[in-house]
């Protein structure tokens, strides 16, 4: 068995607030481990009005991007114009945060066809503060950092990342979240400068990094506190049947499973799951020419491996022309292929692909069906 499984066991446990019981139960009342990690962090108490004032304060420092409501059930990250617009409690945004680092359309070069002159687009080095980000989303960004930073690094992405300050917030899981099933706790603070934990009367604000400390130092609202505060226990609804560190092993045995055909029968191949996935980053590069038929741009567009033409070559040969093969490829990229080099699962359990699938396909159901298949195989072998 490849050794990366061992790596996997620890990969999600880096600097997070470790919570051993996370696989059977979400939430906790300040367990010992939680205490030991969090008591190291300086903390403040903010009521909601302090939070809004703090956002106003952030807006004096840099452009602030935060989740805002977009109709009754829909949320989106947007530049904040008014702190009262910021959604403090929201299940998830439709689009993940990656759009700020890897834009849906990005100009790589501008050119003149007549003279073959070209120049590179300059990435503005502007500071951005992202407020109210959930832990699974932060994990998604970390995974993109790995994928786009390794080998030949994507300089545009990295420049934008270097200018981002990210502030986390806890969330109440709905029926689509399964991040804790993948070892990403709601209170995972890695990557955040500050972390806002919802408590009954307001928020506990934990200072995670020096940058966060520097930021909050100049803010006059909120009050520093020392005493322990009980945190509400929240149930997780969507669950993966196995511990997450067993998933790569499952994927070693289900390549030819019938599960792929079963779910592919329902799938319409629209690519929404690619589009909304915080860890999908595949792209296409195309030239767009202006109306003068001379000035043009070489642009990168998001692409998706669920789309039929994704693996097609010039002669017309399509190396992944079946939906089941494309669906399998997508899930293997999340649980097996990149995992072999990164030692991480590349799904963060945000639930977007399930929540927005027009065919009502649930990724948790797919994974659990694969687990059943694997478990049946194991039993058969044991007999």
């Amino acid at each position, binding site marked *: 068995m490849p050794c990366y499984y061992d790596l996997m066991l620890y990969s999600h446990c880096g600097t997070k607030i470790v919570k051993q019981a996370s696989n059977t139960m979400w939430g906790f009342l300040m367990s010992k481990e939680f205490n030991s990690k969090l008591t190291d962090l300086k903390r403040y108490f903010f009521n909601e009005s302090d939070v809004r004032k703090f956002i106003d304060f952030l807006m004096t420092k840099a452009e602030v991007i935060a989740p805002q409501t977009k109709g009754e059930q829909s949320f989106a990250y947007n530049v904040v114009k008014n702190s009262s617009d910021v959604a403090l409690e929201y299940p998830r945004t439709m689009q993940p945060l990656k759009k700020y680092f890897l834009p849906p359309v990005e100009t*790589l*070069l*501008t*050119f*003149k*066809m007549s003279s*073959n002159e*070209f*120049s*590179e*687009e*300059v990435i503005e080095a502007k500071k951005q503060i992202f407020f109210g980000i959930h832990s699974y989303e932060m994990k998604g960004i970390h995974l993109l950092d790995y*994928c*786009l930073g390794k*080998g*030949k690094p*994507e*300089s*545009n992405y990295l420049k934008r990342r270097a200018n981002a300050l990210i502030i986390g917030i806890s969330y109440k899981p709905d029926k689509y979240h399964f991040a804790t099933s993948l070892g990403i706790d709601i209170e995972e603070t890695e990557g955040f400068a500050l972390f806002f934990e919802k408590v009954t009367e307001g928020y506990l604000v934990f200072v995670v990094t020096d940058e966060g400390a520097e930021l909050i130092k100049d803010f006059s609202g909120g009050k520093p506190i020392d005493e322990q505060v009980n945190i509400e226990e929240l149930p997780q609804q969507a669950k993966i049947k196995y511990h997450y560190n067993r998933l790569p092993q499952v994927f070693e045995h289900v*390549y030819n499973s019938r599960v792929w055909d079963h779910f592919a029968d329902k799938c319409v191949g629209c690519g929404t799951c690619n589009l909304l996935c915080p860890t999908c*980053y*595949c*792209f*296409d*590069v*195309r*030239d767009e*020419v202006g109306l003068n038929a001379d000035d*043009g741009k*070489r642009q*990168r567009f998001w*692409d998706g*491996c669920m789309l039929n033409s*994704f*693996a*097609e*070559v*010039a*002669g017309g*040969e399509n*190396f*992944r022309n079946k939906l089941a*093969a494309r669906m399998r*490829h997508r899930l*293997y*990229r999340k649980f*097996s*292929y*990149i995992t*072999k080099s990164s030692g991480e699962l590349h799904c963060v359990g945000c639930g977007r692909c399930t929540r927005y699938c027009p065919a009502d396909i649930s990724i948790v159901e797919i994974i659990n069906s694969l687990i059943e298949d694997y478990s049946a195989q194991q039993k058969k072998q044991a007999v």
Partner: protein
Amino acid sequence: MLTNTTEMKDLYYPLMSDIIKVEQLTATEKRFEIALPDNQVLNHKPGQFVEVSLFGFGEAPISISSSPTKTPAFDLTVRRTGKLTDKMHELAVGSKLGIRGPFGNGFDVDFMKGKDMLFIAGGIGLAPLKSLIDYTIDKRKDFGRIIIVYGTKHPSEILFSNEIEKWKNLKDVEFHMTVDRPDDNWKGNIGVITTLIPPLEINVENTIASIVGPPIMYKFVLMSLNSKRIPDENIYMSLERRMKCGVGKCGHCQINHSYVCQDGPVYHYPKAKELEEAV
């Protein structure tokens, strides 16, 4: 505001190069000889590819069909099959095109040293394989026998007729070819490429087989090499995929966990066997 950023030269920055020679090989294929700016040398390995672009028409991966022993210019053999390649076919000597690369791994020529070389090329697969064929002929003393097996659908599709004549006349090169469908003038072998493999007399332990051809060809060629008892370890193959970025990011060329633009396009057969989507 636009400026050239050179501090971190971007991954997508093409080198504007000159077409210094164009040769029509068949009705649909042309060979372009390309010179990089300032007499730069591409420094490629046989089997590698470059990303070729024309502003307004996009970019595509094209394999290098000349050997690194030929410098400073290099050859690209291009079939017209889409927006970019159609436009390329309209270009004359003196035109510019963008080059990024070389990309991919190329053939393991050090491992091949001292071995008998069996080349199996189907159709336009001869173009990438020619970089290695030329290399072995240019470094003739480093290799044992050179056996070239080439098959096309029709005599009108034969590439590199001049080189083929040369190969036929070289005493230390064995050249075999066949066509699927002959025309009236065809006097050679008729049949698919696998018909040429069983009669070959080779020392299987010391022979390295390098295969490039259309996807359908691999399965059958591998079967017939297998029945000749050539060990898997002695087989290399180059696989075609859509290498869009060339730098292991865009995802288009992925075969299971392997990015063809990084781990390929040349695969050692025992490795390719582990990739379910490979052939």
